[in-house]
Each structure stands twice: as structure tokens, then as C-alpha cells.
């Protein structure tokens, strides 16, 4: 057990009119090797929560135990915060804004230096950290961090944290403000770090599609409390509650829900695009008595949902009712379909209710994808 949090509460600006409860009796255990995703609305307390794990905020009530270091509201005994921070690495939102040194190397070395390591050790760690985040050490070490691109800056900032070799890594919105390519790279980096650097990872994200790609367990914060703490696959049985809290659910789950509503026999486990693809192929095989495999099919969920009649047709609203399509949508969908047989697809979009057309159309989509 790496982190145990008991009855943790925290209030900002206590006893003033600005008083705001940020955490209300939080109990949570984070195990070694966990890949924990934290989701929640702005102001739901998730940032305050992770700041506690790093000892940046002193608990007002309750206690936290992190790798045998105990944090309580008591003034004594004094906690060795440096030791704690070398074990728990914290990557804040927009970490590139905290870069300050004149070269990348010096900036990354800031953390290890503060730990009081030897010069050789620091140099080695810096080199390793920079390479770990996928940058060319020799090429970037003497450059000013401010001249790098946005994605590169962020990776340098992350390197600055992992150079401290934390056992646990916390990332607050690691992909915020990046372009899709940069996002993809940071996500891959996180998975890489989990394997090679910090076995326990906690990620805050508001992009549910992103978090479901790697998190094995998801904690949902709402109104300063933990609402759900579930394995990733089990979370979305609470889809309606999540929606009520104003949280999004993964696109694949939305589509699966819609298809289920239409009468397709889709399993409850669908969370990611891959799951959905497997289910669709399974249904195809069942119907046509074939044994096609889902492997090797490139599958773009966004494209798929567009071709299947746009998001809002397939998205059941809170009551679980699918909306019927409007003619105005067809033109959008039409534009989105780049294949030759747009007319047919438009047809499929407007006649979603017809199960038979639906089926054949889906098969076609899949087939055409397979051919690609």
C-alpha cells in the first residue's frame, strides 16, 4: 500500500466570507502499481487533493500516510517534506510555465540538486530523464527552455520531475492546451513512464476519452467528496449519474449505449474504441457466421460516430432515449464522409431506426475499413 488517506478534510480561507470547502472527509487508498485516474468538475477538490499527497498543503483534518511518511494536522513531529517529495513526483497543470533556468539541463537538474545529490549523479539523472521523455539530450541540453516548442517544453518540465526518480508520479491535466499530436505523445510518454520510471501513477484529466485509454481505476470527485471509486470498466454503469454531475462519458460508451438502445446486443464492458470495435466485429460474425478478427483494423471512433449519423443522433440523452435525426444533419455527415458511397451512408443516417439497413451499413463500413 503506497498511500493511505483517512478522513481528510480541507477548507480554504477558513472563517472568512470566502470560506470554501475543498475536501470533505476523503478516504482513499492508492496501491503500488495503480494507474489511477481522477475526474471531476472544476472546483470539485481534485487539485487540492493531489496537493495534499505531495505535502504541499498541510491536512486540516484527517491523516495521510505516504510510503511510511505520516502527514497530520499536528505541528510535531516535523515531517521530512523533501524526502516525501523525492518519492512523490508532481507534475502541475501547464508545467512548462515553471521553467526558469537558462538551459534545459540546468532546469532539469533543479530537482535533483535540491535533493543534495552529487554532481555526477545529477548529471546522469538529468541525461536519463531527458532521454526518458523522448528528447535528444545532446541537442537540447544547452538550449534555453523558452525557445522550445510547447510540447517539448512540457516534456522538459516532466523530465525535471522524473529526474528526482519518484516512486509515484502525479500529473494534473498533463495534456491540457496541447494539439492532438502533442497530446498523443504525452499520453504515450505517461504509459512509458509507468513501465520504466514510476510504477504508480495518478492522473487528473477532464478528457474522459483520454483517461479511459490507460487508467485501471477511476476516482470521481464531486463537491469535495469522492463519489465513485471503481475499476475503469465498471465506472460507466453510473453513466446517468456522471452526466448529472456534468461529467462526460467516453464516446465509445455513448455509441454502445445508443446501439444497445437500438436493440443491438452490445456488452456492458465497452469503454474504449477497441472494445467497441471488438463488439461490432463479434456481432458481425454472429450474424454472418464468419470468424473475422478485429485485429489490424484501424478504427477512428470520431469518424465512426459521424458515419453512424452524427453524435447527437447516437447519443442517448439523460433518459436514455435516442433522438431522431433531422434532415439538416445529413449534409454535415455527407461532408464528413469522404468515401465514394456517400449517398448510401446518408441514407443510413436518416434511417437509423431500420435495424436491417443499419446492420448492413455497419458491415460495409467495417469492410471498407478492413480493406484499407
Amino acid at each position, binding site marked *: 500500500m503506497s498511500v493511505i488517506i483517512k478522513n481528510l478534510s480541507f477548507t*480554504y*480561507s477558513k472563517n*472568512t*466570507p470566502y470560506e470554501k470547502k475543498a475536501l470533505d472527509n476523503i478516504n482513499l487508498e492508492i496501491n503500488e502499481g495503480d494507474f489511477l485516474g481522477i475526474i471531476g468538475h472544476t472546483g470539485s477538490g481534485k487539485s487540492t487533493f493531489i*496537493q495534499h499527497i*505531495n505535502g*504541499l498543503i498541510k491536512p486540516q483534518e484527517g491523516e495521510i500516510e505516504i510510503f511510511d511518511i505520516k502527514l497530520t494536522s499536528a505541528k510535531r513531529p516535523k515531517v521530512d*517534506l*523533501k524526502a516525501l*517529495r*523525492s518519492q512523490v*513526483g*508532481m507534475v*502541475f497543470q501547464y*508545467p512548462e*510555465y*515553471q*521553467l*526558469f*533556468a537558462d538551459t534545459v539541463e540546468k532546469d532539469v537538474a*533543479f*530537482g535533483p540538486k*535540491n*535533493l543534495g545529490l552529487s554532481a555526477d549523479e545529477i548529471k546522469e539523472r538529468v541525461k536519463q530523464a531527458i532521454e526518458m521523455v523522448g528528447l535528444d539530450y545532446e541537442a537540447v541540453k544547452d538550449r534555453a527552455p*523558452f525557445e522550445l516548442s510547447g510540447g517539448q517544453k512540457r516534456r522538459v518540465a516532466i523530465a*525535471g*520531475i522524473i529526474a*528526482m526518480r519518484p516512486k509515484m508520479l502525479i500529473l494534473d491535466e498533463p495534456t491540457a492546451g496541447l494539439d492532438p499530436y502533442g497530446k498523443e505523445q504525452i499520453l504515450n510518454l505517461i504509459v512509458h513512464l509507468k513501465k520504466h520510471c514510476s510504477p504508480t501513477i495518478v492522473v487528473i484529466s477532464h478528457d474522459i476519452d483520454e483517461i479511459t485509454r490507460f487508467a485501471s481505476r477511476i476516482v470521481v470527485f464531486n463537491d469535495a467528496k469522492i463519489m465513485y471509486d471503481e475499476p475503469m470498466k465498471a465506472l460507466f454503469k453510473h453513466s446517468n449519474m456522471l452526466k448529472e454531475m456534468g461529467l462526460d462519458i467516453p464516446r465509445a460508451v455513448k455509441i454502445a449505449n445508443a446501439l444497445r438502445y437500438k436493440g443491438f446486443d452490445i456488452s456492458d464492458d465497452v469503454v474504449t474504441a477497441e472494445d467497441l470495435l471488438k463488439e461490432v466485429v463479434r456481432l458481425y460474425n454472429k450474424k454472418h457466421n464468419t470468424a473475422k478478427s478485429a485485429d489490424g483494423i484501424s478504427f477512428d471512433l470520431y469518424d465512426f460516430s459521424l458515419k453512424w449519423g452524427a453524435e447527437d443522433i447516437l447519443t442517448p440523452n439523460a433518459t436514455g432515449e435516442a433522438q431522431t435525426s433531422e434532415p439538416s444533419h445529413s449534409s454535415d455527415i455527407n461532408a464528413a464522409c469522404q468515401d465514394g458511397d456517400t449517398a448510401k451512408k446518408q441514407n443510413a443516417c436518416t434511417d437509423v431506426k431500420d435495424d436491417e439497413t443499419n446492420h448492413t451499413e455497419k458491415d460495409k463500413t467495417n469492410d471498407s475499413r478492413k480493406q484499407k
Partner: protein
Amino acid sequence: MRDISFGQYYPVKSFIHSLDARIKILVTFLFMISVFFIVSYTMFVFMYIALTIVIAVSHVPFKIVLKSIKGILFLLIFTAIINIFFTSTGNVLVPIHIGRVDMSITDQGINFAIKMAMRFTLLVLGSSILTFTTTPTELTDALEFLLKPLTYIKIPVHDLAIIMSIALRFIPGLVEETDKIMMAQKARGADIDSTNIFKKIKAMLPVLIPLFVSAFRRADELADALDARCYNASSKRTKMKVFKLRASDVIAFIAVVLFIVVIFLDKYLVTNLLVAPDLGGFEVQGLDICIYNLFRLVG
């Protein structure tokens, strides 16, 4: 860092909060001038009583208002010391001579020191009531209105008001940013909480550089945003909230003006009409003379 209380708007509902910001600024301005015309302890007492009533009516807790004095405590003590040691008029109580410099403590010096400290405290309390009960937006709007005559001598009052409101608006943002960067560097093991002053100064550098970078970036973005919305493209701008004087504003204004008139009467009329007692160099002024005579009559 989050708990900066001096001059921060205190969001409650009260009579003072609801007053017209222009009146509040005007009244505070008059009040500040009049503070320098208070000569008698009697008037000081009246002033403090009046201020206490105003604070009570404003629903801002006394504790928070008093906190604002903390910031000028050093200044208060410093001026008091200067006054005590470097006033040479009056009757000498403790003779101190350092070399040729006469640093004797006189009764008049103590008199000045106390009055000066009371004046400073009044100034700070009075002005903090203004900022506690008026939002920064109201303040700048009202200032813009009051300074409007200056546009005739080509002073860009509106621009100045915008600059001021942007500056005010950005203070909480910068504080928050500082907080964030501090946390981020602390997470990397920076010695920001260290008690060693040199370590602390060194640890501030990784905070200040990103802070400056971000402040410039924000300023740049804001300028672009203003441009993009065609700021200053049209000469005449209208206001969403238009100031309107109400009866309560007028009454409050008249009450304060009457009070100030009393202060002036005390300084100029009472002091000149009554014959001040001769106590060596020690001056008794205004209504204090009456009180002094009363005590003499009784005792």
C-alpha cells in the same frame, strides 16, 4: 498567500456597501483632509466614535478592519519615535543630550507623537473602510467619473481608469500564479519554506522568473484581446451600470460634511475664542480647553 486582507473587498450587505461609490470616494477624500485639521483630543475621541459607528454599520468585522493597521505599524512607531526625540519645544521631561544634539523628551513631543499616531490610524482605517465596502470595479468607475473634468486638459482619464482596473483585476491572478509556481518549485524540493533568509532569497529566483514571464505573456494576450474587440475604436463608450444618486447618499454626504465643519470650528473658532491656559510650551487647543477648564473648576 491567499489571505491578503488589506484593502480587499469584504462582500456583505450593509448601508455603507450600498452607498454610491462616488460619494464614498468624495467623503473619504474630505475625511482624509479633515484629519489633518483635528487639533484637540476631544475631537479625536469624537472621530473614533464616529468611525466605530461607521464600521459597525458596514458589517465588516472589527478584527478584519484592525488588521489593516498591522501594515503601517512600523511607520506608526517610527514617526512616534522621531516626534518624541526630535521635538524641542515644550517642557522637558527627560533631558537627553547626545553630543550637541538635543534629544530631550518633552511633553509637547509626546503630545505630537500621540496625535500623529492617531491621525495615521484614522487615515488607514478610513481608507480601508472605503476599499472594504466598495468593489474595485465600482472604485475605478467612480474615480473615472470624478476625474472627468481632467479630460478638458487632455488627460486620458478613461485610459487611466482602465489601467487601474486592469491592475486591480490582475492582483488576485498574480497572487494565484505565484502560489502555483511556488507549489511547483516546492514539489521539486525548493527551500521556499526555509527559515534561513539567504536560502529563501535564493529559492525565490525560480519563482520570480516564471512569474515575470507569465505576467508579460498575460499582458501581451490582454492587449491582443483588447485590440480584437476594437477597444478605443469608438470615441464614446457607455456604461452598463450608471451611477444614480439616492437620498441616502445625499444624507450620508451631508452628515460627513457637518462633522468636518465641526472639526474646522474646533480648530479655528473654539481655539481663538477661548483663552488657552499657559502651560509652558505645552499647547492645549480646541475643545480640550473647555475640558481643561472644567477639570480646573471641579478640582
